[in-house]
């Protein structure tokens, strides 16, 4: 196992990320849990990939590895050609800050801060001076259509609006990839569709997006679907063009 599975035909751009034989094993008490058993995956820039799998299939672990929240037990992972193995916690924080944009199922906004400050946060941690932060934050908020909610606190917003704030926060740092983990999981289907439309738009503007979901109709927004099972890649297919129209 662990043979590299060929990328979809859409792979035309540069390599955004590349996993080779990635194994992740957790030790829980006396037991070893093999969350990933040799995953190899290449994603090119401007790809739109959905990662699917049942719970326990290892997709959360894969997300954590790709998001540099966790490091593989063995195998290599490189982001834009830069291997992540052996990086310190400090360097990983920097990579997350500058290369990865997270969108979580539960939004994960800072509750006491307003929309502007939430979106500004990655730039503060990146050390961007105040004068340069403001236009970038305003631009990101405008892209998700929340310009008139800039000074609101998260608890004054609807679920869909909160997820838009999270997306704005993910893209404000101009990351290499946006990692969206069940972005519609906490939303009703209509709001979910709106959020997916925002992501689709970002993809069309050239953003690389990795989407983790267990719902097929959400996954079909992507152009390529990777299915995980028991810590291994089960299938890796391009989504037939027009499948979304068929919904």
């Amino acid at each position, binding site marked *: 196992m662990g043979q590299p599975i060929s990328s979809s035909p859409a792979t035309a751009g540069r390599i955004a990320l590349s996993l080779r034989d990635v194994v992740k094993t957790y030790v829980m008490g006396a037991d070893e849990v093999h969350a990933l058993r040799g995953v190899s995956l290449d994603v090119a820039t401007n790809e739109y990939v959905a990662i699917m799998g049942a719970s326990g299939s290892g997709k959360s672990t894969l997300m*954590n590895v790709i*998001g540099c*929240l*966790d490091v593989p037990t063995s195998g290599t992972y490189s982001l834009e050609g830069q291997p992540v193995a052996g990086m310190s*916690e*400090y360097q990983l*924080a*920097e990579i*997350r*800050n*500058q290369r990865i944009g*997270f969108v*979580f199922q539960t939004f*994960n*906004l*800072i*509750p*006491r*801060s307003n929309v502007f400050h939430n979106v500004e*946060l*990655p730039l*503060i*941690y*990146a*050390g*961007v*001076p105040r004068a340069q932060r403001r236009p970038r934050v305003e631009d990101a908020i405008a892209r998700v259509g929340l310009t008139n909610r800039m000074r609101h606190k998260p608890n004054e917003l609807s679920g869909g609006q909160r997820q838009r704030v999270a997306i704005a*926060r993910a893209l404000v*740092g101009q990351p290499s990839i946006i990692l969206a983990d069940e972005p519609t999981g906490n939303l009703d289907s209509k709001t979910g569709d709106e959020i997916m439309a925002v992501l689709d738009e970002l993809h069309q503007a050239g953003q690389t997006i990795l989407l983790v979901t267990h719902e097929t109709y959400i996954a079909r927004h992507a152009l390529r679907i990777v299915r995980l099972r028991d810590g291994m890649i089960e299938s890796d297919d391009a989504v037939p063009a027009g499948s979304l129209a068929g919904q």
Partner: protein
Amino acid sequence: MKARLDLEESFRIALGSLRANKARGTLTTLGIIIGIVAVILTMTAAHGLQNTFRQSFSAVGADVIYVSRMPWVVMNDFFLYRNRPGLELRQADLLASKLRGRAIVNPSIGGQRDLKYRSATMEGVTIIGTTERQTLVSTAQPELGRFITDYDVTRRKNVCVIGTDVRDGLFGDAAAVNQELKIGRTTFRVIGVMEKQGGAFLGGPNFDRQVFVPITSYVKAFGGDRRQQNVDVAVKAPSHEAVAALEFEVIGEMRKIRQLRPAEADNFSINKLDTLVGAFDNIMGVVLLVGLLITGISLFVGGVGVMNIMFVSVTERTREIGIRKAIGAKPHSILFQFLFEAAAICLMGGLIGVVVASVLTAVVNATVMPASVSIPILLIAVLVAIGVGVAAGFLPAWRGARLNPIDALRYE
């Protein structure tokens, strides 16, 4: 640059958190407030005692050395001095003639006697036999009438100059000058009243409860055997810088007068205000240390309270820490966020403590005894408060900074 921005964010979060948890923060500061008030009051008390002490001995003069039989401060080495011969008036006069022109030398001799004026009496008043040079070696001057003169001394006049407490005790509001009072069994005429010295220090000498008489009259009235005389000799240097050289010279002259062989130890003592102040400062140092140790315990308890609340704060915000780490916060950003919060809580406690202590001191000042807080003490107190905050906040902050982002994000 980067670090500065990080700190700015950490500071902002800390303030926001304090604003969000006002009641909790205020309760937590209570321990710090009590600790800081205790520290300030201890230091203020020690400072006040020191000032009172210096003030009460200010009449002694820093450029004067005293030759006496015994050192002023005798600890547990009394047996060393017990058999020393007393200083005779004759020897004091010899020393004066040796030092003539280079220093002012004034012998004095003292004892306790009862005073009587008509029906009023005072028991155990300090009677000091001295010369006209007394007002040159000490800062105390007569307020009414005149001091003893050369003529009074050479003619053994039975005249006296009294302190304000003696005046009040014997004469009340009536005029004292030219009245005659009895010291022991001898009649003396009052020729002057000294100005008030004030600040009798914790059972130390009260310079206002003294009577000056010519030293010759003292010897005539109370002196007895020459060998039992015990005179103190004040030697005033022309300047403060000359004190050290003068002391050396005085020791040499005194050894000659006493006919000591080179191997023999001095059988007299040189006393200075510095020695007294030094001994007192040593004692105050110990008192202050013990006081601060005890108040330190209350501050420690306050610090533990802050540490406790910081652990709660870190646990409560585990998820927030996870979010911040996911979007790129480095461990030190998280560490500083919580250190600032702990320091801010303690700073608040410190500032409130400063206000409370100032009010308490003002009350004490108005009712019990003169007391005032000094700016350096308040500054130290505030710095101590911040220090306690940083110390108490470090462990919780460190725990927050070390959190694994995945676990933290999953925390409910």
